[in-house]
């Protein structure tokens, strides 16, 4: 059987390996394996996954065979159908009972907000920054529409806009930190706690500025004092102790 040969490592490699998988240096042609020796049959590679030589005979395996992208698309489709049904039903009920479209507009924009927040990340899974670029302006816009549905702007500027931005900031930062973590476990909960702390402190700041005219922190400090040490403990457990291990392993006496 023809093989290639790595002069640097002195080993035979596959005929398809133009560079040595061990040292990365170019391989040369001309290697042969002794009489009677043969290379193992490698399983075929399909879409980056190895499949068994016998093929897939699982009768329930159709869903399993779908790629993650295909599965996500099915979820988007289902959610869109259900959201559409919910919108139509809500509008019809409102029309039937009040003979005009009134309260159902709130439900309509609520459903639109839900659709955007769930489906945009699913559709643009591989492009988190595009998700952020779409959702960050969309949500304040929806909140603004909520406020002006009754014909005048009342709570959007003092409360709606800053709280929406604060929520987005907390979510983006939390998502960013979770996204860049190489090994996920208890550290996710720690980041969630820190994100919640940020949100609580910001929320109290916004509320106190509007109600009392200056920054005052009271309950959010208690939240921070509880959550930050807890997050520290979770980080410690995750990075120093657990390594995704079960409690049975960790606490064996």
């Amino acid at each position: 059987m023809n093989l290639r040969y790595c002069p640097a490592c002195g080993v035979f490699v596959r005929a398809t390996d133009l560079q040595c998988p061990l040292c990365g240096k170019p391989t040369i042609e001309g290697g042969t394996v002794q009489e009677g020796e043969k290379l193992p049959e490698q399983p075929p590679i399909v879409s980056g996954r190895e499949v068994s030589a016998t093929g897939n005979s699982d009768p329930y395996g159709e869903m399993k065979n779908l790629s993650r992208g295909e599965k996500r698309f099915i979820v988007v489709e289902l959610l869109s159908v259900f959201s559409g049904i919910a919108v139509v039903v809500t509008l019809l009920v409102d029309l039937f009972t009040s003979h005009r479209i009134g309260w159902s507009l709130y439900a309509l924009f609520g459903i639109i907000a839900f659709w955007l927040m769930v489906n945009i990340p699913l559709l643009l899974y591989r492009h988190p920054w595009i998700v952020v670029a779409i959702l960050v302006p969309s949500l304040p816009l929806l909140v603004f529409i909520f406020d002006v549905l009754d014909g005048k702007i009342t709570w959007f500027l003092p409360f709606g806009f800053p709280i929406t931005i604060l929520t987005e900031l907390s979510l983006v930062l939390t998502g960013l930190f979770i996204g860049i973590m190489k090994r996920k476990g208890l550290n996710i909960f720690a980041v969630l706690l820190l994100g919640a702390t940020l949100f609580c402190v910001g929320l109290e700041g916004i509320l106190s500025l509007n109600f009392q005219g200056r920054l005052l922190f009271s309950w959010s400090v208690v939240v921070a004092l509880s959550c930050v040490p807890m997050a520290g403990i979770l980080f410690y457990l995750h990075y120093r102790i657990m390594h995704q291990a079960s409690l049975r392993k960790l606490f064996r006496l």
Partner: protein
Amino acid sequence: MRERQELFFPLDNSAIFMAAIAGRKGPFVYQFYVDLRHPVVLPALERAVERLFPRFPYLFVRLRRGVFWQYLEPLDKPPQVERLPPAPGLSMGSISRKGLLRIYVRGHRIACEFHHAITDGTGAITFLKALVVEYCRQLGIGQEVDPQILAGIPQPEETVDPAEYEDSYNRYFRPGPPVPETLPPAFVIPGWRMRFGYRETIGTIPLEPLLSYCRGKKVSITEFLVAVHIATLQDLYTALPAKKQRKSKKIISVQVPVNLRKIYPSRTLRNFFLFVAPYIDLRLGFWSFEEILKRVHHQMQLGLEEKELVRQIKRNVGGERNPFNRLVVLPIKLLVLKLINALIGVGSYSGSLSNIGSIEVPPPFDAEIERFSFLTSRAHKTGANIGVCSFKETLYIIIGSTVGEVEFERLFFRRLASCSLPVTVLMERYGGNE
């Protein structure tokens, strides 16, 4: 998959100690290798590793830290075969993500590096034999061989026997016996140590003349080589200037690992060994080789008695089983073990000599093998350690050394040759230009 995630192996008694004190100066990483008659075919080797991966869940592991103990966690996928590194036996790190068994290849050589926390020489050579046999089969060699002939060499299709990963120290622990006495600090090879470099000196002797020489002296091969080791160290001591001699330690003691599977009916492939440590006291004067040989023979015979070995098991395992010790959290345990090692550990020995014995591989696989060999773990304190094994009709003596000068190797093999034994010496240096 869930079962595999939940699977873990508590460290055996030796592993607890070695995992705790392993570091750059004593990494407890040793290498077994096989030189084949033809250059290695990488895809076949990778396939062999892949096939053996589920068969050795207790070897393909990484070290993890719990609250009270460290433990071994099986890897999710087989390790990648890597190019043989320029410096063998370097520290794998206290907590290694990569796993504690690494497989290397270069030219005709397949090398496996083991951390002593996972297995001893018996487990290591069993794995290497299984790997070589499976590699040959991947090349189409020996596929028709009767499985009976391969008894003792684990096969990929076999199920894992729990007896292979039992902690046999705990099984044969007895609470009664008194603990053994500790030895005073021992003389070690003088001279500077290489930081990364490692020198491998291989001496080969045909088995037949060696066996007849040992029979003539009524000693075993191990006893003879330990006596040569001690005599060589004595030569180094004697060659020191008077002032340095006065300052040197006066005990020359060589650690000899004993395979406890030959004494207890254990089938474990994890650590199951203890040490016998023959020694001489230089304050009693100069020892002739005959005197050393006689003393080593008797000390080895006494040390190999089950009643002596059980005292060591009591000392080692007793501490592990103590309820108070078990409740101590891991960082404190590690600290205490390091302290114990610094006070009474490696300082009591001048070196070690580990005889793996005869390595047998059935035909037609043996025809593919040039030789087996193994490189003991680096030990900066002692400087040089010796590994011994035999394959077919040849005995291989491998001195792994971090000592700057080659005086120890020179004296050791010169003494062997002076016994009219046909010794051939080959030296390889790895890494470091210190």
